[in-house]
């Protein structure tokens, strides 16, 4: 076991650290976090528009008229459907912050660049005509999840250029006596001019190819392959395994894995959301969204420790484990389990690491197949905060379908049964330790 520990500490840990600490990945994750509260609010309205009660729609139409549904969805249009704008702004802001250069300027330049590489025209077919015209406007289809990778890439490129200009002091200098706020406003001029010119060249260059615009290139070369990879069963199992492995070394596994995967999961989630919005009974394409992991696989937090916490609270004979159970029971309901991970401890504990890593792999498999065969509804894209207790969270995330809750209960029972023997082993060991301690005291 020492060899394994050594390998984990010396070889795997630094890699985990490097991924989780990588400036760009970190900025992407923190930048996307800007949109998250808004997506939750958008979800609320999405839920109101598609409340799963028979006769609800007819009832609402009776009161508010035919248009009620598209009106209640207005907030969805300015949250989900423009998430790439938030990404473009937020990622550049966070990255600039890490380089200690003015984040607001970097964010503004990034957004401007993102719009510059996007064709600002919308296809429009007038009623009773077959011909389609291109009219001016910001194409909303590229502002949502479809434009996400373009927003990410452009934000990183533009901010990297921006900070190099600032750090090398290639800026317009103001004579002494000019207030700092004024000279600050001029500081962005040279880098912004350079960046936007570069984006213009990029835009025009791509217009001359068969791709027509950068969105088509990125979709084909990045978004589609990555979503296939991340959405596959293999991708799911690897993600779940790595989260468990890192946490069992005491490293925030989700922070590491989501740093790489969150854009992909977000795109997959949003594809489901758009289909769900059009028809709340449609069969959705994607299983692997962030919600799949947070709400169905990791019940009670990484390692699916809700069951383990309940065993500690109600079945532990060891005083220490019992008090740990009581201490962390409340937070476990809301899927926070650091006390369990560090207190049991699960970290670097061969007896508990095994179930901690592999039980979520099993719950991922059961959930995947249940969703695949249609026994359980797939996550509909409604953003449920990960701190929501199970049963409620499954019901909401499945789009108001009880099968989502049932799946959580099934997974809970599975994890309870599989944790039990390991729990007994550890409890026994702890009891023996406590007995020895008591003897020594007396």
């Amino acid at each position: 076991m020492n060899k394994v520990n050594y390998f984990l500490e010396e070889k795997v840990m630094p890699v985990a650290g490097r991924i989780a600490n990588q400036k760009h990945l970190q900025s992407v994750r923190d930048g996307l976090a800007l949109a998250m509260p808004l997506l939750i609010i958008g979800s609320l309205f999405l839920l109101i528009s598609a409340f799963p009660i028979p006769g609800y729609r007819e009832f609402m139409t009776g009161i508010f008229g035919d248009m009620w549904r598209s009106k209640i969805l207005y907030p969805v249009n300015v949250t989900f459907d423009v998430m790439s704008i938030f990404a473009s702004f937020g990622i550049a802001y966070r990255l600039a912050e890490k380089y200690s250069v003015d984040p607001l300027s970097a964010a503004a330049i990034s957004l401007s660049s993102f719009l510059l590489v996007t064709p600002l025209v919308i296809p429009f077919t007038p009623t009773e005509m077959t011909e389609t015209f291109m009219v001016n406007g910001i194409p909303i289809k590229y502002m949502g999840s479809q434009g996400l990778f373009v927003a990410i890439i452009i934000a990183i490129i533009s901010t990297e250029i921006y900070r190099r200009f600032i750090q090398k002091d290639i800026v317009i200098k103001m004579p002494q006596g000019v207030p700092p706020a004024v000279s600050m406003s001029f500081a962005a001029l040279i880098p912004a001019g350079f960046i936007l010119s570069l984006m213009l060249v990029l835009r025009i260059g791509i217009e001359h190819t068969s791709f027509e615009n950068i969105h088509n290139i990125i979709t084909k070369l990045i978004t589609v392959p990555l979503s296939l990879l991340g959405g596959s069963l293999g991708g799911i199992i690897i993600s779940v395994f790595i989260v468990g492995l890192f946490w069992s070394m005491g490293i925030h596994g989700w922070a590491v894995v989501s740093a790489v995967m969150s854009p992909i999961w977000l795109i997959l989630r949003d594809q489901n959301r758009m289909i769900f919005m059009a028809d709340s009974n449609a069969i959705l394409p994607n299983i692997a969204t962030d919600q799949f992991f947070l709400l169905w696989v990791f019940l009670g937090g990484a390692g699916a420790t809700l069951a383990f916490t309940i065993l500690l609270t109600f079945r532990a004979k060891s005083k220490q484990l019992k008090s740990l159970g009581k201490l962390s029971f409340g937070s476990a309901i809301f899927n926070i389990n650091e006390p369990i991970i560090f207190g049991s401890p699960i970290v670097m504990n061969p007896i508990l690491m095994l179930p901690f890593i592999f039980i979520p792999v099993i719950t991922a498999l059961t959930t995947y197949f249940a969703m695949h065969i249609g026994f359980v509804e797939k996550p509909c894209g409604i953003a449920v905060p990960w701190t929501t207790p199970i049963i409620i969270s499954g019901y909401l995330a499945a789009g108001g379908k009880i099968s989502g809750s049932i799946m959580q209960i099934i997974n809970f029972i599975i994890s309870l049964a599989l944790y039990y023997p390991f729990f007994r082993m550890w409890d026994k060991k702890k009891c023996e330790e406590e007995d020895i301690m008591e003897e020594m005291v007396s």
Partner: protein
Amino acid sequence: MNILLCCSAGMSTSLLVQKMKKEAKEMGMDAKIWAVAMSSVQQDIKSADVLLVGPQIRFKLAELKKLGEAYGIPVEMISPTDYGMMNGKKVIEFALRLKKSRC
């Protein structure tokens, strides 16, 4: 004394904050104790006297220490054992020791 804690989302450290506040009250200590997500540390560190980092994000420790140096405050990882048992008392004592060693 202002004690800032940080972890990935500021959730589990906020549990510890609760325990520490209770302990501080019993000790008759005048302290502001709060927890933030790691993405907000840059803002909150300005008003902190000491920054304590959750063990699960210890890969951020080096970076946060550098940040702490810039503001002249000590930055350390919370012991995993105290973190697991949510031992407010020990963590407060730890924070006090850190502060003292710096002055």
